[in-house]
């Protein structure tokens, strides 16, 4: 049986600059994968390619055994949601209207159905933004806006969720809540793939870590093996080292 998501020999670049170089991995439902690496390592580009926003120069991404490019846009959106980086803040819409946009691929009528609203409410509740559903999106703080955008991705009910730095702008409590929600979605059967630089949040909540370095996969391991070969941490910064919490969980310390 084919993997839910398979990335095979994907390469991408601009003239004179290779961003991704033969990247391959596969993943299945129930996994919460964290994609990390230094700035410019190719993380967001890889996420964009998996989301179908960019065409790779070489290689292929397949979803449920079928090439990504072969999926019609709405069919693909029913299976993959993607939170891009830097979504604009000055939107005239209410919070609820933004979250309901996640139902675009499902709604077949002029206004959303009761079912669409139920999914949107559930997503807002999960991301702790139901209380300001009627507020104008542009009046929210950066962190509140981020939670609304995450709720829209969840309302899409996909089997693969891609998040580019989901905890951006969130306060510490909301960062933890965000990663707990993503872990819960993975336990419910979704495949979550998140780009992040917060290694301890990643290690505490995810099931697998992929480290990108200069466009290649430098490490790919289950989170419980993070301390087994700590060389991966050196690719991110020479000032980090691996340790364990009293509970035995892997933990990153500053030197």
């Amino acid at each position, binding site marked *: 049986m084919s993997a839910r998501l398979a990335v095979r020999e994907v390469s991408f670049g601009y003239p004179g600059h290779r961003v991704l170089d033969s990247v391959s991995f596969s993943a299945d439902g129930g996994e919460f994968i964290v994609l990390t690496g230094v700035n410019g390592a190719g993380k967001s580009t890889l996420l*964009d390619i998996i*989301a*179908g*926003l960019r*065409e790779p120069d070489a290689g292929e991404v397949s979803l449920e055994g079928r090439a990504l490019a072969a999926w019609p*846009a*709405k069919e*693909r*959106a*029913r299976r*993959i*949601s*993607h*939170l*891009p980086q830097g*979504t*604009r803040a000055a*939107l*005239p*819409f209410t919070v609820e*209207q*933004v979250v309901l*946009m*996640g139902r*675009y*691929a499902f*709604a077949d009528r*002029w*206004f*959303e159905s*009761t079912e669409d*609203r139920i999914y949107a409410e559930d997503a807002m509740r999960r991301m702790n933004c139901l209380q300001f559903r009627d507020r104008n999106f542009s009046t929210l703080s950066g962190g509140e806006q981020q939670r609304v955008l995450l709720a*829209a991705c969840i309302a*899409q009910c996909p089997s693969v969720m891609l998040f580019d730095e989901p905890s951006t702008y969130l306060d510490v409590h909301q960062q933890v809540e965000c990663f707990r929600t993503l872990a819960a979605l993975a336990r419910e059967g979704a495949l979550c793939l998140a780009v992040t630089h917060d290694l301890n949040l990643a290690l505490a909540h995810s099931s697998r870590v992929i480290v990108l370095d200069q466009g290649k996969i430098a490490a790919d391991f289950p989170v419980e093996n993070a301390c087994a070969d700590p060389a991966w941490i050196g690719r991110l910064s020479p000032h980090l080292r691996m340790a364990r919490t009293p509970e035995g969980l892997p933990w990153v310390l500053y030197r």
Partner: protein
Amino acid sequence: MNSRGAHGVGWIWGSALAFLLAAILLPWAGGSIRLDRVLAKAAPDYGIFVELRLSRTLLGLLAGGALALTGSLFQSMLRDSLATPYTLGVSAGASFGAVVTLALDLDRLLGFPAAWIGAMTGAAAVLLIVAGASYKRGSLSGVRLLLSGIALNSICTAFILLINSVVHDRRSFSITQWLLGSVDSVSYRALFVFGVVVLIASSIVITQARGWNLLAVGEAWAASRGADLRGLTMTGYCCGSVLTAGAIALTGPIGFVGLIVPHVVRARISPDNRVLMPCSMLLGGVLLASCDTIGRIVLAPAELPAGAVMALVGGPYLVWLVRRRF
């Protein structure tokens, strides 16, 4: 349907009622014709009503609707609150085409007024050039459309100035008059053709309102929710250009309606394009036809161009609204 949907549909019906009332009442504004004489087809009341006022009101309603809808479309598509039907260069192309026919003193082409044919040809040429310049690696980007459109706008404006400076005084006066823009009576044949164009293009645009909502957030956001970016952008650009070119061919450049109406509807009624677009279209028509009527009667027998009335009435209101909202 939920309460928000019902609220939006209520506004659409209310706007449609205003449109209908404007079509019925505005031709009678300013007096001097009587209902009983029009019904009896008595001269000159019948001729004034049918040949002048009714066709002029209908043109104002259709052109205002087309321009206001295109304004709301381009503002969402380009994520630019200053976008108007004129942003993407089509209006300058249409004006350039019309000015060429005026400079050559052409009266009619293919059975139509030469300025209309010139305007449509100029608009089509700019549409093709901008779309061609913006198409890259299988996609049509809003940013590339915007920048190419602004460049073509400047080039066409430069040619218009050049032509206007070298032609004979009489032709220069005609060009200046055309560039001021006005709603004048036109033949019912032209109105029918324009009405069919508006009906088809606006139906295509409005039925994709949910897609425009997504594009208003961002291209990556829209694509990730399942929108066909290339199809949406091409559809929006072509339909918006056709609506703009049709309106400009018949009225000359009257652009403010495409800026003010979508902003007012967005602020006062809804930012959701499913409500915003039909309401903008209907109320834009009412506004342009009303401004034309005011311009017709306020200094009678002299006339003030509809574009000038709209700027005088709408400009201060927009400034007040912006100050309150932002």
